[in-house]
């Protein structure tokens, strides 16, 4: 049994210290990424870095393989997010509106792609694709990404639905609007922020995903795959760091925005991979 049996005033200083240590442990590593993006030494990770320079940013800018990877990642993320938005909203609407047999099963099914370890999802999809003779391409990546992004959108949208009164839909119909008009004028404006939040989270998730992607990509490299290759066989290390800084920004900003948009829901729906 894990216990801490020292309490009271004597432990008053130990607790914040331990808490602070844990927090530092969580955040300090990322600072080093930023630091090393400016290191003038590109053959090793020597500390302290012998000099600081910004030339790696220009180098990264001019490398075509990086641009290809970024473009592919952006395209995959965009299409996967679009698919996830549609499918996730449909599922959320269905679950919210009706009480049907197997409702819990549906929730479980939606969360499975993200709950099971990535390697399982990855290898299943890969073997299914090769069994079906489907060549690995952009679309196999998108297929995989959309599958685990659905639940992220679903969680956000259904949380918003649950706080919407069903009477609003009845009122709209009562006033002469049919189902489609009601969706356009009443439902959509109400769930707009959750769609945005879910979409951004899905985008960030897809942009960053590496495990399933390595299984379902063909010859292409998304940015994470590029980075993985660099990690195993580094070329110019600071360039990798520059890219890493870029990735931090691209994934962090949408998440912060999504957090801000859903802050009144008391939960960042979909948090925790």
């Amino acid at each position, binding site marked *: 049994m*894990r*216990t*801490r*049996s020292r*309490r*009271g005033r004597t432990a008053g200083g130990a*607790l914040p210290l*331990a*808490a602070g240590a*844990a*927090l530092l*442990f*969580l*955040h300090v*590593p*990322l600072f*080093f*990424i930023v630091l*090393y993006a400016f290191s003038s030494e590109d053959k*090793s*990770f*020597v*500390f302290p870095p012998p000099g600081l320079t910004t030339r790696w940013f220009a180098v990264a800018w001019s490398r075509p393989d990086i641009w290809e990877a970024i473009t592919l990642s952006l395209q995959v993320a965009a299409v996967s997010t679009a698919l996830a938005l549609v*499918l996730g909203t*449909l*599922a959320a609407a*269905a679950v919210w*509106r009706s009480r049907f047999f197997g409702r819990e099963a*549906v929730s479980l*099914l939606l969360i499975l*792609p993200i709950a099971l*370890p990535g*390697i*399982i*999802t990855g*290898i299943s*999809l*890969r*073997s*299914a694709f090769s069994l079906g003779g489907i060549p690995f391409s952009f679309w196999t990546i998108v*297929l995989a990404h959309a*599958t685990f992004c*659905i639940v992220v959108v679903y969680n956000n949208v259904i949380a918003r639905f649950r706080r919407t009164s069903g009477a609003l839909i009845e009122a709209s119909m009562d006033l002469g609007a*049919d*189902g*489609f008009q009601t969706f356009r004028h009443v439902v959509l404006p109400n769930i707009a922020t959750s769609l945005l939040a879910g979409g951004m989270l899905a985008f*960030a998730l897809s942009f*960053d*995903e*590496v*495990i399933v992607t390595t299984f379902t990509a063909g010859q292409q490299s998304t940015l994470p795959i590029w980075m993985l290759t660099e*990690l195993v066989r580094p070329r110019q290390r600071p360039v990798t760091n520059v890219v*890493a800084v870029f*990735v*931090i920004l691209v*994934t962090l900003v949408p998440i912060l925005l999504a*957090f801000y948009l859903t802050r009144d829901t008391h939960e960042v729906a979909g*948090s*925790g*991979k």
Partner: protein
Amino acid sequence: MNPVAPSTLPVGPEASRSPLHRLSTVLYLRPTLLLMLLLGPPLLWLGVIYLGALAALLVQSFFYIDDYSGVVVRRLSLATYGELLTAANLDIVVRTTVMASAVTVAAALLAFPLAYFMVRRASLRLKAILYLGVVLPLWSSYLVRVYSWKLILAKEGIVTWLAERLGLGWLLEAVLALPGVGGPSLSTAYLGTFLVFLYMWLPFMVLPIVAALERVPRSLLEASADLGARPAQTFRRVIAPLVVPGVVAGSIFTFSLTLGDYIIPGIIGGSQPFIGQAVYQHQGTAGNIPLAAALTVVPIAIMAVYLTMARRLGAFEAL
């Protein structure tokens, strides 16, 4: 003219005859049809693509590879599962499980003070900031976070530098010399792998413990003090039992995530593979999908057992 005198029109204007409108009425009067239309696409997608793939994988684990031709024989047999029981494969499983357990224990020890501080000692504003601070790394790029440790643990990197500056160089050498967990550098030692796993999954342990602690009503603690218990006793008898479900819930994540990961041990750590890496190797050039599938079943089975135990301990309510 009375603005509210009822109009003689029984219904709305001609827009009511458009096909979209009529479709809406059909769906309105047939809620089951509407449900099927809403639920159909996502269920079909997930059912066919995802469940189908999982099923295919499971079926493949019952095939086996012919030793001579190297081709997958599509007949059901337990031969591949039998192969799991060889020393080499068992070694892999044990290694992975031990690592998962170590990470879980360490994560709990590290997470608990932070969670306790957040719930019981921090002001509301500080708590919100800390909460954000815990969740943010979760959503930062996975690879970038792993990469950051490669820099830190590199032989020429900051840890070595720090150790030397603090005069603890000898300690670092001693640790690296330990059998099993040590290695030429932290970046190629299982100790390093352990640190990275701990770093990656720590937020997953903090959040459920925070949730569990929040569920302990202040009145319980006051009642305990009122009945004469010293703080240490209150902790042991009142707080700890109520927090255990939260710890178990967090451990589900740390355990399962470690079991399935193949990237982290590949970047940081020794040369002996973990389950994830073995799976990757087998399905790759070796083409031994049945063995890869069977190996994948192992963490699933372990987690299934773990989850049933966790359910008994009430962890599901803490999720």
